[in-house]
């Protein structure tokens, strides 16, 4: 009976539950949204066919690879993304700059630690600058970044400790690009370790802590694991990475830089899936773009290639004449050069500031070698006007020197590069079409440096250097040289070494007083105003394009290939700015 009653109650309950409307669900608060970060997994292998680094003791380094290796384990104060936005790294807040542009107040994060747990303090930075980078005993390679000219004297900037996390840098002259050229890339050495080696160059050079980066603590996304010279550089994930505490970055367990002796072997490794990323040559891009499982990014670079004219007394005398230089540049077709030699992976160059730079301008810049200013007939007319030709009876112009002899120019280039050899042949062909013969000399780089770029005043006791004054000449005569230079896109004033009259790398003898003034101007108080600086750079570009001390050929673009499962990449000129956020996607 009791069982029957229960059954009836259950039956009624079921009926009512079917018949009655469903009560509205009680709204529950959503759990706090947890941002999903990529899983940490896998060994990322980057291939390179360039040279190996020299040292991880980066204060002794002069090569880019050494800075790149060390940079995986220790960040600098700040970095840029592809749009030139500044991203703070060791900085706690943006650098404060006084209105007169002379005082920089730098505040670092308070959560940075060396490997032994000691906090990284402003004192470490001040010590690194004053006792290491500015010292005589260490002879830091890039001391000039931290120097300024004051009343004809070269002096170091002043550095002053404020508190645990703050220090101040004082200049006596304003330089709006000092922050980009020097401050943002500053990285500290641990004072409590470095002090043991202070003053002893040999001990500092051989210090195990610095050569194995054992001190880097929480300062970078990775920690040093292994370096087999000429083979591979291996770093492992740093679980204490100061930027990884919230995001879990970096997302690779190891990051390997694998060196290949040839690019053919490296590309085979990419194709076989043995490496995840490498740069590829323009002629290989089409092949890799068709491959499933590989993605290719084409990005601008900070480089430009150019044909330098020798404006010194041992170059062809015609090169002293601006109109002649313009005529030569007007005869070389940049678009054909880009299409045929650069396989389309370049933009035409007319000056030294690359297109992605905020200071790039085309306004008022003469575009020799393209459009209306690629005109061989007009070039011949200009040479005729300059006295290097004769108009024939049929109206045509034959080109020759002032003695009526054929013009023969010597083009110097380095051996071992197919690209420079192709450029050489292209220039020979183009100038040949207007009646100028080009002989080329191919030689190893050290020979080119010593015999063609270094110069001295004949008969003087000068040591050969790259710019020994306007009367200095190289050991061997030359007329043109195929080269490639780089420009810092955000701080192009460093290129002054090539373009100002007494620039340390102005081996070609270019001189223009106004250009000299403007290069001084972009590093002055007036140029703190970006608009003023932009105008100054525009005028420099216009003057250099007009003067044509060199034929600026192109701004090449580079191609980077990745396995398709690598995600988080931000393609651009500064492709690796966020490499600690790269990860392997789920298969």
């Amino acid at each position, binding site marked *: 009976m009791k069982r029957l009653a229960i059954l009836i109650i259950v039956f009624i309950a079921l009926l009512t539950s079917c018949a009655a409307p469903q009560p509205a669900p009680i709204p529950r608060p959503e759990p706090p949204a947890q941002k999903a970060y990529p899983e940490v997994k896998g060994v990322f292998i980057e291939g390179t066919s360039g040279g190996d680094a020299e040292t991880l003791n980066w204060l002794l380094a002069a090569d880019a690879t050494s800075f790149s290796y060390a940079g995986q384990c220790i960040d600098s104060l700040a970095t840029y993304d592809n749009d030139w936005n500044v991203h703070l790294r060791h900085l706690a807040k943006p650098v404060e700059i006084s209105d007169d542009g002379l005082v920089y107040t730098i505040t670092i994060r308070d959560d940075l630690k060396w490997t032994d747990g000691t906090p990284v303090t402003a004192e470490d930075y001040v010590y690194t600058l004053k006792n290491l980078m500015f010292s005589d005993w260490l002879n830091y390679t890039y001391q000039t970044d931290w120097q300024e000219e004051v009343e004809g004297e070269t002096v170091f900037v002043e550095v002053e400790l404020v508190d645990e996390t703050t220090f101040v840098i004082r200049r006596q002259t304003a330089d709006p690009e000092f922050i980009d050229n020097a401050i943002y890339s500053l990285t500290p050495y641990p004072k409590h370790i470095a002090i043991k080696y202070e003053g002893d160059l040999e001990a500092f050079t051989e210090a195990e802590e610095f050569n194995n980066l054992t001190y880097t603590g929480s300062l970078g996304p990775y920690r040093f694991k292994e370096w087999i010279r000429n083979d591979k550089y291996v770093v492992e994930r740093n679980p204490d990475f100061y930027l990884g505490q919230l995001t879990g970055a970096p997302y690779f367990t190891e990051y390997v830089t694998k060196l290949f002796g040839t690019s053919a072997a490296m590309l085979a490794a990419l194709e076989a899936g043995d490496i995840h990323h490498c740069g590829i040559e323009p002629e290989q891009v089409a092949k890799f773009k068709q491959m499933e499982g590989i993605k290719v990014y084409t990005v601008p670079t900070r480089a430009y290639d150019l044909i330098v004219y020798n404006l010194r007394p041992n170059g062809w005398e015609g090169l002293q004449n601006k109109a002649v230089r313009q005529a030569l540049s007007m005869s070389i077709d940049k678009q054909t050069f880009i299409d045929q030699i650069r396989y389309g992976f370049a933009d035409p160059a007319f000056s030294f500031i690359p297109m992605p730079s905020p200071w790039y301008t085309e306004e008022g810049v003469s575009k020799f070698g393209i459009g209306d200013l690629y005109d061989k007939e007009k070039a011949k007319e200009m040479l005729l006007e300059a006295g290097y030709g004769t108009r024939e009876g049929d109206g045509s112009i034959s080109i020759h020197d002032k003695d009526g002899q054929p013009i023969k120019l010597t083009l110097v280039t380095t051996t071992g590069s197919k690209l420079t050899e192709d450029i050489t042949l292209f220039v020979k062909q183009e100038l040949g079409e207007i009646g100028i013969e080009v002989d080329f000399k191919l030689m190893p780089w050290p020979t080119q*440096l010593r015999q063609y770029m270094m110069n001295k005043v004949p008969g003087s006791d000068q040591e050969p250097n790259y710019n020994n004054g306007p009367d200095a000449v190289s050991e061997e005569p030359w007329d043109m040289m195929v080269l490639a230079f780089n420009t810092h896109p955000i701080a192009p004033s460093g290129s002054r070494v090539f373009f100002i009259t007494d620039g340390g790398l102005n081996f070609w003898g270019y001189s223009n007083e106004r250009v000299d003034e403007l290069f001084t101007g972009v590093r002055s108080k007036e140029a703190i105003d970006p608009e003023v600086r932009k105008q100054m750079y525009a005028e420099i570009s216009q003057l250099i394009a007009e003067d044509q001390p060199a034929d600026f050929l192109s701004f090449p673009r580079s191609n980077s290939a990745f396995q398709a499962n690598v995600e988080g990449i931000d393609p651009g000129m500064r492709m690796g700015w966020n490499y600690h956020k790269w990860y392997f996607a789920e298969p």
Partner: protein
Amino acid sequence: MKRGGLQNYIIRRLFYAFLIAFGVVTITFILLRIGPSSPADKYLANISARTQDPSQVIEAVESRYGLDKPIYEQYFNYLVNLARGDWGWSFSTSMPVIELIKRHWIYSFQLILLSMLFASSLGILIGIYSAVKQYTRTDYIATFFSFIGISIPNFWLGIMLILVFSVQLGWFKTYYDTGLPMFSLANLKALILPVITLGTGMMAGYTRYARSSTLDNLRKDFVKTARAKGLPEHVVIGKHVLRNAILPIITIIMFDLAGVVFGGAYLTEIIFGIPGLGRVSFNAIFANDYPVVITITLIGAMVVLLTNLATDIVYTWLDPRIRYD
């Protein structure tokens, strides 16, 4: 053979080796340091990238490594350090030279050793077999392939092997993995393609030498005598012919060994990414890292001298008629 005679011979050769070593160090040092190049030259490319005045940077680098001192002073300091067992500091790799050599010699050694074993054992066997079967189809096939082996450049062969066996078939990694344990099957497998690349040309050469040398000996009277005595053919070939035929081949193998140590393995190391002494020396030459170049040149010279000495000693064992007293 008089035991004392051989000992004196060895001592005399070792004394010469010491003199040659001194000469090698001196000549290499002078040639490297009097040339126009400086270890600081290579910085120029990066200097232009960072747009620095090069003269200050080059002065800084030269001063740091004592390269701004007079050459005789640098040479004297180098010899004094060498006498103390200090082989110097490698500028281009930032480590003591001896440490650099210690870390890298093994990669070259295993490659050269296995390649020599592969080339000499197969080459000699095929050569003898080819000679014994002269003018048969086997002989023609062996001859054909040995000429191909001699003609193929090893850098081309290496790339082809990678494309076929690594990229297309996926049997091997495209490069040598230094992370593998040295004495493991995985390491042996990783060395198969490099060994074939380096060894094929040598093997083809040994096949030709072995065939020719065997044919010479097969016509000799002592072979006819052995056969007349009723010895089985394998004894005639294995005991009488082989022992005489192998003498000139050993000389060639030893010369090849010296050649390979001096740079023949370099291309194979480059193609397969093996960080052996070939790559180390090549990079050191281009970086003007003279302490490394001198040390590796010295090692190469010593290998040549010692292999020659070893060849002479092996001769006395293989051919009792040879004496050094």
